[in-house]
């Protein structure tokens, strides 16, 4: 209270503040009925996508609390091709996190190289007993369905690399198609010109060679008229002849190349593009965006290579009438791609790969709680608890189903 103010004004001020709040809307969140908008990366609980887990044990080893329990066994996968080598792989039997011990540091999520662990914002899992806080694979898998998609980017932010790439790819495909049309037209034209010329003159596919000694009369006359000495005029005219002739031959060869398109097509694997060129369009765009010259050049180079490959591949494709989608193989593996946002925790995450590389883990089986009766009985006979037996039998069922699916595909 200031020295000058009347005694008691401070008291009245206090009353005024409280009564003002009486008529304000309470800030209370009516929790069980109303919920906070949780941040997408809220550390509520750790969810497991067990399809992704390769049992690399990194998470269990990095966990500062040692609260991740993993059991697995090795399995031999028969060779994919006749005469191939059989491979072994780890199969996850048990994955449990003890949430009574977990310190929610997120190291396991961070360290998992296969995106099998995710943060889910669920937090309502209080329990009456502590051992109930040890959550097994099935429960962790259920939580995986609650993982939200990654948050939207800020407005005006640079699009993620994989998105730009995908857009660029699509654009390139369109462009390549247009280009092909144009090429065809040009080739047809060239062919007619060639036919008119009567097919005379040296026509060699490789390094054009020009007979020496001939001079370009036109150049010679001009130089003599300029008052140059005879010797000089002759030598220059000779050079001019060679140049002209080479240019002519090259043009012819190009036309021939155009012609060759109709002939047997180059294979996709043969597509080789010389580096060093840059895609001017991309370059300009990046410079305009204020990127440094170095980065723009590098990206433009990559863009050029991609464009070129796409173009060639498209040509090859159109020639062959079939083949892999353009640019699929050519695309350099980007690290962000692996963490692809769209393939986050959806059940069909594992990308379809060529059959040659299929492994057990790549097969996805929808389990609806079926159990493998045999395993179950065996475990019960062994004296395991009902809960554990059921969990294991479930896992066994999934494994069997996966194997069956794989065999089926192999047969087909």
């Amino acid at each position: 209270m200031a020295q000058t103010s009347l005694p008691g004004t401070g008291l009245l001020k206090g009353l005024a503040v409280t009564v003002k709040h009486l008529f304000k809307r309470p800030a209370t969140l009516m929790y069980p009925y109303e919920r906070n908008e949780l941040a997408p990366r809220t550390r509520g609980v750790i969810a497991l996508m067990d399809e992704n887990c390769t049992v690399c044990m990194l998470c269990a080893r990095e966990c500062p609390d040692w609260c991740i329990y993993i059991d697995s066994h090795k399995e031999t996968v028969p060779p994919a091709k006749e005469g191939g080598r059989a491979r072994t792989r780890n199969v996850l039997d048990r994955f449990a996190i003890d949430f009574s011990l977990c310190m929610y540091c997120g190291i396991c999520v961070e360290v998992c190289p296969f995106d099998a662990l995710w943060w889910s914002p669920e937090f309502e899992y209080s329990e009456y007993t502590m051992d109930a806080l040890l959550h097994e694979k099935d429960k962790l898998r259920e939580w995986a369905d609650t993982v939200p998609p990654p948050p939207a980017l800020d407005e005006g932010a640079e699009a993620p690399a994989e998105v730009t790439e995908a857009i660029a790819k699509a654009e390139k495909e369109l462009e390549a198609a247009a280009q092909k049309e144009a090429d065809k037209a040009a080739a047809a034209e060239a062919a007619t010109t060639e036919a008119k010329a009567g097919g005379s003159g040296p026509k060699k596919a490789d390094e054009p060679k020009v007979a020496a000694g001939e001079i370009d009369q036109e150049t010679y006359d001009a130089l003599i008229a300029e008052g140059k000495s005879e010797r000089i005029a002759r030598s220059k005219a000779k050079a001019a002849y060679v140049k002209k002739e080479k240019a002519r031959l090259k043009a012819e060869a190009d036309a021939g190349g155009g012609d060759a398109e109709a002939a047997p097509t180059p294979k996709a694997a043969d597509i080789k593009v010389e580096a060093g060129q840059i895609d001017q369009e991309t370059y300009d765009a990046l410079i305009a965006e204020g990127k440094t010259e170095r980065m723009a050049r590098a990206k433009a180079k990559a863009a050029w290579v991609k464009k070129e490959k796409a173009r060639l591949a498209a040509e090859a494709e159109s020639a062959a009438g079939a083949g892999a989608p353009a640019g699929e193989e050519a695309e350099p593996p980007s690290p962000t791609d692996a963490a692809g946002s769209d393939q986050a925790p959806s059940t069909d995450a594992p990308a379809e790969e060529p059959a040659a590389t299929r492994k057990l883990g790549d097969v996805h089986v929808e389990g609806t709680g079926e159990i493998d009766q045999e395993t179950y009985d065996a475990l019960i006979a062994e004296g395991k608890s009902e809960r554990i037996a059921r969990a294991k039998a479930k896992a066994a069922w999934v494994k069997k189903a996966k194997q069956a699916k794989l065999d089926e595909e192999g047969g087909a």
Partner: protein
Amino acid sequence: MGLMDQVELPQPVKYVFNWGRKYSLWCFNFGLACCAIEFIAASTSRHDFIRHGVIPFAHGPRQADLLVVSGTLTDKMAPAVKRLYEEMPEPKYVISFGSCANCGGPYWDSYSVTKGVDQIIPVDVYVPGCPPRPEALLDGIIALQHRIQNESLKDRIAGRRQDPITLGADAPLALEEGA
């Protein structure tokens, strides 16, 4: 007390009595570390657990019904917690809030930390988290209220007399019954 832990009350009376205990949980906070901040947050305007009848900050243990242990319980502090718990009148409830109180949490290998408050007093509800959200405490309180509404005071006291610590372990209720 007195008769109430000797005889099984008829259902309507039991219902009313349980209802009274359920919505009058005078809460004694044992804030020991970082988790206490989240506990305090749960008592503020935003989360306001008085809505659920949890009257915060009973002045002393004698008036409290609910002990919330939030934070790292050290071996040095453990006797104090045990003593204050014993000063609370029956029927009393305990919520263990956060990993440290549950079982030591990040200090699971520390020489000086008690690995879980349930080693010294019986716990009714474990709230996981490090620290748990304030809503997680509310969720734990609702779980506890569900348990209180369905319990029999006689059984509870009898169980307490036999084995004071393991009450939580073979509790008659499970969460699956629907909180």
